[in-house]
């Protein structure tokens, strides 16, 4: 083999440098109509290097075969390094690694210029060369990176399993290498530089670890495509963790990704992991620096952009926190409620006992989880985690603590997402705030205070519902109308329960009760009116997204009308006949549109009953009225 210092070798190194420059720098300037110009040039240079290396091979070692006639199925990638093979640091091993690296670069070049089959061939050649070697410090990078590329290539051809095979092998090669050797390995580019240009150990580690981070990231995508979401989530988590550990991240981007991952964990009810992601997101977002002042933002476009970005992303992280608190409360509610949505005391006791038992196991669970952070950040992340529980709240005190954290994030998020300019976002935050109150009210035993919480919801949503133009925000308007109707309904129920407790009725309570009934009817009606055509006609056939809500609204209005308290018999009669009309509507609609039945099964069954029974009640009232006259 030519000496590393020979003139010819120096020219190989020079060629390699040129190929890299063409690939990484020049190619970015290529014109649109000739987008691969520089990459094609780089390819030619790489081919020259390849030919020189081949010549060295035959000169140096006549006895050794270069073709590689391993009986290996091309499609199947097993773990290398078994059986008789060259040690990676032997002369033959080094030659193979070097030639393999050039095959690798040629492969990537072809893939990047959309010649996939040729790219595949080069990459497979690279694999074949290396299969004759044991994994070592010299070649482990080639082993892993070639498989990364093949993984991408096969995934692009929709052959996910094949991609998975290559990537999982890369993963196990890494793990085994780290277990058995663990020293910073040679980087691919180092084969073609003079000794004076060798990389530092630190840089070697960085590049090697980055390649492996990519392996994990690609595996995350493979698992996602295979709908193995849990595995995908775990691999995303590790990818993020490694970005942080090897200092390869942009703080704001990283923070947003971690915050987004928390939302994934929330859907899985993994609140400890969700909280960890959020705490890390908040801490890392803090590393992105101070928000430029308004004055500074007006001075320069760059500062303005930075200010926007920082404020927006931090507000978004706050919104992820809100969802954390909200779901924690709602999950707890689901767990604790009895069949009519009230707190089940026995269940509560049982869960409290169970929690005491689990407390110790939890601690251990935490230690085994993959944690984010470096020496500087992990303390702050930990401190932030301690500010809010990740256990489902079991009583009002615990629920309130979570509610308050959620509420503080509501305030934070609203600072950026103001009504003026961010209508949809602002309203979504208000809806969350309302939902926080709603969930908290479940834990409140005092009915009066519970009612006040619902009043708060009305107070925050009602003015907005009034101001919003349905022409542009129709669907949000509908959501608000429906929620307001339900909230008034809830308050009406609570007032009744209160009156029930006092076992006394005064005119004031009746007034209040009727007011709440009417307000609830009003909003259900508004919702139903929003479905009408411009001519004011109610559609004969409801669209799927409003089908159930519309029929439920009718059903509820029916109920509400029959609940209004009136001293006047004719008013009572009027209310009951309105109620009957609404029940009738539900029944008729489902007769005309049988496919609607399954959307409102129970409601329909009850409506049918009421349609047959209500006339009786009305008759009785009529008779009473007639007799009293």
């Amino acid at each position, binding site marked *: 083999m030519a000496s590393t210092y020979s003139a010819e070798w120096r020219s190989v190194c020079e060629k390699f440098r040129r190929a890299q420059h063409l690939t990484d720098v020049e190619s970015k300037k290529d014109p*649109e109509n000739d987008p691969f110009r520089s990459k094609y040039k780089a390819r030619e240079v790489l081919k020259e290097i390849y030919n020189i290396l081949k010549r060295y091979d035959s000169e140096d070692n006549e006895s050794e075969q270069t073709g590689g006639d391993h009986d290996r199925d091309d499609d199947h990638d097993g773990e290398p390094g078994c059986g008789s093979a060259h040690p990676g640091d032997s002369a033959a091993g080094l030659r193979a690694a070097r030639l393999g690296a050039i095959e690798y670069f040629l492969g990537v070049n072809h893939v990047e210029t959309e010649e996939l089959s040729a790219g595949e061939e080069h990459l497979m050649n690279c694999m074949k060369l290396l299969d004759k070697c044991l994994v070592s410090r010299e070649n482990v990078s080639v082993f892993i990176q070639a498989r990364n590329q093949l993984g991408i290539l096969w995934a*692009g051809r929709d052959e*996910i399993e094949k991609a998975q095979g290559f990537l999982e092998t890369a993963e196990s090669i890494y793990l085994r290498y780290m277990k058995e050797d663990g020293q910073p390995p040679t980087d691919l580019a180092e084969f073609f530089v003079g000794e004076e240009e060798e990389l530092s150990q630190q840089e070697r580690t960085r590049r090697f670890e980055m390649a492996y981070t*990519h392996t994990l990231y690609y595996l995350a995508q493979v698992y996602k*495509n295979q709908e193995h*979401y849990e595995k*995908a989530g775990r691999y*995303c988590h590790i990818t993020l963790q490694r*970005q942080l550990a090897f200092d390869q991240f942009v703080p704001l981007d990283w923070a*947003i*990704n971690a915050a*987004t*991952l928390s939302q994934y964990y*929330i*859907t899985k009810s993994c609140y400890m992991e969700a909280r960890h992601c959020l705490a890390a997101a908040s801490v890392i977002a803090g590393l992105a620096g101070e928000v430029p002042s308004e004055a500074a933002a007006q001075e320069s476009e760059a500062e303005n952009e930075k200010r926007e970005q920082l404020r927006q992303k931090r507000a978004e992280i706050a919104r*992820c926190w*809100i*969802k954390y608190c*909200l*779901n924690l409360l709602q999950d707890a509610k689901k767990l604790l409620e009895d069949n*009519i*949505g009230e707190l089940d005391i026995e269940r509560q006791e049982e869960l409290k006992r169970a929690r005491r038992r689990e407390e110790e196991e939890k601690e251990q669970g935490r230690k085994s989880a993959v944690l984010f952070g470096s020496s500087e950040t992990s303390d702050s992340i930990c401190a932030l985690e301690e500010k809010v529980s990740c256990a489902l709240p079991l009583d009002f005190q615990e629920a309130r603590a979570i509610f308050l954290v959620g509420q503080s994030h509501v305030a934070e998020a609203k600072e950026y997402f103001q009504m*003026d*300019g*961010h*209508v949809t976002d602002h309203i979504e935050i208000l809806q*969350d705030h309302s939902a926080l109150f709603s969930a908290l009210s479940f834990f409140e035993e005092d009915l009066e205070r519970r009612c006040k919480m619902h009043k708060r919801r009305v107070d925050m949503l009602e003015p907005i519902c009034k*101001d*919003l*133009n349905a*022409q542009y925000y*129709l*669907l*949000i308007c509908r959501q608000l109308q429906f929620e307001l109707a339900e909230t008034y309904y809830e308050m009406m*129920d609570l007032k009744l329960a209160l*009156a029930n407790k006092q076992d006394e009725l*005064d*005119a*004031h309570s009746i*007034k209040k009760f009727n007011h709440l009934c009417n307000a609830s009817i009003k909003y259900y009606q508004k919702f139903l*009116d929003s479905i009408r055509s*411009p*001519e004011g006609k109610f559609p004969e056939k409801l669209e799927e*997204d409003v089908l159930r*809500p519309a029929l*439920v609204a009718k*059903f509820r209005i029916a109920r509400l009308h029959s609940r209004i*308290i*009136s*001293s006047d018999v004719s008013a009572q009669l009027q209310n009951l006949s309105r109620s009957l009309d609404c029940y009738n509507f539900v029944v008729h609609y489902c007769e005309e549109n049988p496919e609607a039945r399954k959307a409102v099964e*129970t*409601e329909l069954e*009850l409506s049918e*009953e*009421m349609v047959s*029974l*209500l006339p*009786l*009640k009305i008759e009785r009232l009529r008779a*009473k009225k007639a007799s009293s006259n």
Partner: protein
Amino acid sequence: MASLHGVLADTREIELSAKVIIHMEGNKTSITNIRIPEGISGDSSRERVKTFTYDFSYDSSDSRSSTFASQEKVFKDLGSDVLKAAFEGYNACIFAYGQTGSGKSYAMMGNPGDAGLIPRICEGLFSRISDMSRCDEASFRTEVSYLEIYNERVRDLVRRKSNKTFNLRVREHPKDGPYVEDLSKHLVQNYSDVEELMEAGNLNRTTASTGMNDVSSRSHAIFTINFTQASPLPTPAKFDAEMPRETVSKIHLVDLAGSERADSTGATGVRLKEGGNINKSLVTLGNVISALADLSQDVGGSQVKKKQVFVPYRDSVLTWLLKDSLGGNSKTIMIATISPADVNYGETLSTLRYANRAKNIINKPTINEDGNVKLIRELRAEIARLKALLAQGNQIALLDSPTALSMEEKLHQNEARVIELTKEWTNKWNETQDILKFTKRPQGVAMAPPELPSSLQGCGRMSTEQQTE
């Protein structure tokens, strides 16, 4: 309102050697993969002929053909609905989508003497305006704006003084909907004004392409007509009496970036690529994670109530700006243009697929409804009572029986007291009225009820409310 999807094939630019692989029949469009030999039936993913159904399929490739769809026909099917919606005070939106050179501008703008949708819609708009103004039915104001979205940045294409045309911010106003801050609006009187502005804008669109020869296919352009009608008569029953009589509607005419530029990273705002592609760069990690947060809940079926989470994945500027047009409250028309030539098989198939799925690209917010459990239980109890009543036959005795009385029933029983109190008050009120009748002459003066004793206010209010209902 429903949206419509039309597919339009245009062969104008086909070379003689090219084979036609598109076939249209009724509202169906079929595409043939000539690389798969005839007569072989393999797995379904490699079918030779794939067929898609749309609301309309138009063949505008050969004017001598019997199936030829003229511009007039396309306008009648699609454009007239847009006009109707605009005069009713709704928003409307027309998308044109397809590979560069597949006839997007032919469909939207047309050729001299063979006008496309945009000129026809504008003409329809202005001729109806002049009809209605002549009859003094209403007065109108029409303003237009023209913008371009390139690399997620918004640029004003028709600003006269160009102090700030780049990187405009998109915002939302509670009354006026989504808008672009500092975007210029231009008053127009007729179609030639519109045409002039459109041309000026198009000129800006191309001159801005420093070195790039193909910017137009990489950017989305939105031409918006803001249309205000002030009617002296009340507009036909809008749902709300509070609605002002001035109605504003927007017509968006959207020229989407060429489909061949739409990549999986969503640079053009529409994620298209299917299959198992892997993103290479870690920059896209956010996409993967947010997709995960979105997807992970779809597994359990729709029966389970989904958890509400927040995925901080910004909508693209395009979907953001058009959300009022995509979200259900407007007339939306999507036109996919395709080339019938075999060389474009891949692109054409992806366009057809996209058009087929287009209905689903917008995330509709849904109504989250609380369960009806409590209500259902109450109602069942009431039904049971009413049934028992029916069985017993003795109506009055049973309804008043104290068994299973809910608080509500108690309240109704308490009516006795309410009636008493009300009677008392009604008498007083009658007395007052009697007195007033004698003392005050003028008729028709509205009289406020006298002050009520506080304990009675409820009843008083209640009955007045019912009278006004």
